[in-house]
């Protein structure tokens, strides 16, 4: 929700969210290539996928939790 804050803090919050999302995309892009160099790429891809999904679940959970407390 739009918190009762000024334009600048909201822009900072937007940038924080965008940076996190962009970092996920970057990790996936690089990870999928780096995983090919491992002896078992399937396992490496699996670990990468689970890590990012886990990160998403935690971040969404924290977001929903913090909204609920507001």
């Amino acid at each position, binding site marked *: *929700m*739009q918190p*009762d804050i000024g334009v600048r803090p*909201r822009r900072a*919050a*937007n940038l924080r*969210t*965008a940076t996190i*999302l*962009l970092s*996920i*995309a*970057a990790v*996936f*892009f*690089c*990870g*999928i*290539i780096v995983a*090919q160099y491992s002896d078992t*790429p*399937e396992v490496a*891809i699996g670990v990468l*996928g689970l890590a*990012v*999904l886990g990160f*998403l679940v935690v971040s969404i959970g924290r*977001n*929903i939790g913090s*909204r609920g407390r507001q």
Partner: protein
Amino acid sequence: MSSIPHDHAAGHEHAHEHHPGGIMRWIMTTNHKDIGTLYLWFSFIMFVAGGSMAMLIRAELFQPGLQLVEPEFFNQLNTVHGLVMIFGAIMPAAVGFANWQVPMMIGAPDMAFGRLNNWSFWLLPFAGLLLLGSFLSPGGAPSAGWTLYPPLSVQTGMGMDMTIFAVHIMGASSIMGSINIITTILNMRAPGMTLMKMPLFVWTWLITAYLLIAVMPVLAGSVTMLLTDRHFGTSFFNAAGGGDPVLFQHVFWFFGHPEVYIMILPAFGIVSTVIPAFARKPLFGYASMVYATASIAILSFLVWAHHMFTVGMPAAGQLFFMYATMLIAVPTGVKVFNWLATMWKGSMTFETPMLFAIGFIFLFTMGGFTGLVLAIVPVDISLHDTYYVVAHFHYVLVAGSLFAFFAGIYYWLPKWTGRMYDETLGKWHFWLSFIFFNITFFPMHFLGLAGMPRRVPDYATQFTDWNVVASIGAFGFGLSQFLLLVAVLKTIRSGAPAPARPWDGADTLEWTLPSPAPYHTFETPPVVK
């Protein structure tokens, strides 16, 4: 979410209604409505381009033997038709809807990052030109199928490089668009609009955007490795250098299956918006719809190998992917049940958006059922790469995504243009599309069951009759789509003025705005109670 009472009658200001005119308005715009319009027109142009290729494919298949095109060119048509329709038509159309509707539905003044939004769109025409321009390159367009499987994709001409570059650009555009949409939804909702009060269209797009961020980099990574295999001496997928072509299939479908849901979830959102409006009842089981959408998205990461049962995998793997695929039918069934329950005992009327939404439910469910058939390993092994698969995914993506987008266009056209569309024309568009769609694609089930392989320009004579029927249906379906263009242009030019809320049952925030929606809306956020 049922209705959204709020204390903001109009929620808009006209303090700075002025904006640049002419072509510069469209090039420089950071306004979500302008960018939404650009996305929708771009996707229509690509839809016509991809549709023209489909017409040529069906013309060639009208009779057995080679009539119109060489086999190499036929393969190129097949490949680019798929790429154009997926990356150029369906996905940008969905983003167009998101741009127009998400800020208005959550009471936000615009998208979180206006300039990023502009950049996301303006990358697309260049990617589209690269993709279509590949026909003019030495060796022609890529001919490896839209899946770009090696070894073909490692060996073909520079059209493949243009396609890889186009996929990179479209992927970057999608990722930027998704970041924008997620940030807008998470940070810019109107006060009082909790997550569980958001319209379902917004929910489906939030989940779709997460899917895009997770899988588009995977596609970008895999085509980057294809590129380095082609030009920089690596052997990720090149068997001649010790690479593994099957690994590409795993990586590709790790992207490819969630991609199916990227194309269908926004369609679910539109149908979930349209049906309550014309049934004049709140959406049945709102919370279960949200959880079903999230479940579908999560499960979509666990089923990729059902696309490649025939490459060989351990029985345990086959069983896992078979059962995981079947599991997706559960949340999908919840959705279909909820749509039907919403209509149950509703005061339904059947304007064009509702007709397309009902057509969607009927035909998408058929596509879902054939998907279940294909999930069964022994059946899939027999039907793999046959026309049964072609029928299945066209029931999902044409009668699914496309019909829902048509429903969305007719539903929101009064809000976008300030004018009502011609109902008669809209109904003609629906009925002709519905009939010709089935004439085109239903016979393909028979062809596939009889063993006709896909991606072939010629076929055995016993397949002739149903191919003739399918081709006639395809020409009819293709021509019917110009009714959409006529309907939209007629609405813009001479439609009757639309009231702020032309649909009785429409209760989301955009209907509190006048029609057409002012250039700037909700600069003072409405308070949702």
